[in-house]
């Protein structure tokens, strides 16, 4: 029996359950963090009624959403309408399988882990677009059109930054990338200015693109409440909307994990001692907090401003960092 439990399929099953629980819990409690954060940034207390400091609020929200009727409005493309939220959630869950949470805590330590995350990440656009299109709603279709141009625009600088990182690290294995950043915090990729003096800028570009790709404010063009009601999610009720909402947080989680792994040394400790899962979680949640922070301090940009930022600033700068780091690699 013990021998059976230590086999690969059982390990994968344990990771599957673990990742789903992790994403579910985080999606629930990041909503609480978001609402608390929003409250504090706006000088009000946020949720306080349900449980101590509103800690049971996510459970109340979940019960409310689950008890509502799942309406498929007349005239929508029912099959696509139902599939879209799942298509948004599944890639995020699958991508988390290659994230190394600790020195030996990764579901699958494959050599093309980084590529896997971006391959699956590209399905998100498809999900929002199908959701918006199948809703047969003007707001939803406008939102879907926006999402495509936004994601196409921001995928380019993201991939350029990632190519720079692959060139510097020489691998797409995420655990290997973390292992290369061993030592104190100045060995982390974000501070390795001798490899490329623009490394902090690269990190900043990655973070901005991550915000844009997860459709977070100030780039939340998919769900611009003041202009498009709820964008692509307008027609969704009950858990259809709930799954979209959870998927947004799952994607934030994934993006912050990836930023941690690529730039902030993953599970390495900042003092060179005691590396472990704890450090990974601290760094990741710091980034998650930064995402919330940005959302409630910056107003939503205009759509043209958003595209201009990508095409006129981020893409040239990321191309420049790519060329610069390759030149430095060639010279030294």
């Amino acid at each position: 029996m013990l021998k059976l439990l230590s086999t690969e399929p059982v390990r994968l099953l344990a990771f599957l359950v673990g990742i789903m629980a992790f994403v579910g819990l985080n999606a629930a409690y990041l909503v609480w963090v978001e609402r608390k954060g929003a409250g504090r940034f706006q000088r009000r207390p946020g949720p306080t009624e349900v449980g101590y400091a509103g800690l049971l609020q996510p459970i109340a929200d979940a019960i409310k959403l689950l008890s509502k009727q799942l309406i498929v409005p007349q005239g929508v493309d029912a099959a696509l309408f139902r599939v879209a939220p799942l298509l948004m959630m599944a890639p995020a869950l699958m991508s988390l399988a290659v994230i190394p949470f600790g020195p030996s805590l990764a579901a699958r330590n494959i050599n093309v882990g980084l590529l896997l995350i971006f391959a699956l990440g590209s399905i998100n656009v498809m999900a929002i677009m199908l959701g918006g299109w199948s809703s047969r709603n003007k707001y939803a279709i406008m939102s879907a059109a926006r999402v495509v141009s936004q994601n196409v625009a921001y995928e380019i600088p993201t991939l350029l930054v990632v190519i720079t990182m692959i060139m510097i690290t020489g691998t797409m294995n995420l655990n290997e990338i973390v292992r290369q950043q061993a030592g104190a915090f100045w060995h982390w990729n974000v501070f390795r200015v001798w490899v490329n003096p623009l490394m902090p800028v690269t990190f900043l570009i990655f973070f901005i693109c991550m915000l844009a790709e997860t459709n977070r404010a100030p780039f939340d063009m998919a769900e611009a409440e003041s202009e498009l009601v709820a964008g692509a999610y307008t027609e969704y009720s009950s858990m259809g909307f709930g799954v979209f909402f959870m998927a947004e947080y799952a994607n934030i989680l994934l993006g912050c994990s990836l930023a941690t792994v690529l730039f902030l040394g993953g599970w390495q400790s900042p003092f060179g001692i005691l590396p472990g899962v704890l450090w990974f979680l601290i760094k990741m949640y710091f980034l998650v907090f930064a995402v919330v922070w940005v959302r409630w301090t910056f107003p939503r940009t205009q759509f043209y401003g958003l595209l201009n930022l990508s095409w006129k600033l981020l893409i040239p700068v990321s191309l420049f960092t790519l060329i610069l780091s390759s030149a430095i690699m060639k010279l030294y």
Partner: protein
Amino acid sequence: MNAFPASNLIVSVAFVFALATMVLGALIAVGSRLLIRSVCGLAICSVGLAGLYYFLHSPFLALMELLIYVGAVCVTVVFAIMLAEPTEPKNEEKRGPTLFWGGTALAAAVAIFWSLWWLGKSTGWKTPASRLTDGSVKAIGVSLLTTYSMAFELISVALLVAILGALAIARTGRTKP
């Protein structure tokens, strides 16, 4: 590794699943009346194909299939449909020409499939003694820039022409209404 009961069976089931996904996607792509569902069928078919690539020990190719076909091609096609297609499909179509062209296409497809199958059966495939490359990024990069550099450059020229064409169309569209 093989201590788990029926692990071979699980692998075969996964293989059949990938195969079934691909066939199902292809059937949806061909059989659906709504254009958008056909694109979804194409996407499903690509996912199944990626699964088959994975079974052929090419995870890089499998992920590229996902990234390019699902993430880029299908998204572009859906975007084009959103700009162009009327919401309701037209039901008024003449049966005669449809049947004729459909029959011709079916005959051609069967002929191509049968000849490919015959080619695959009758060729004596030689199994290399060892794996030629390990499928790593470095091996792929080296072969793209040495052995297959001609194909690589031709593809980039094709993309350049496509971009120039799009620019030309967009430009004339703007100046001449």
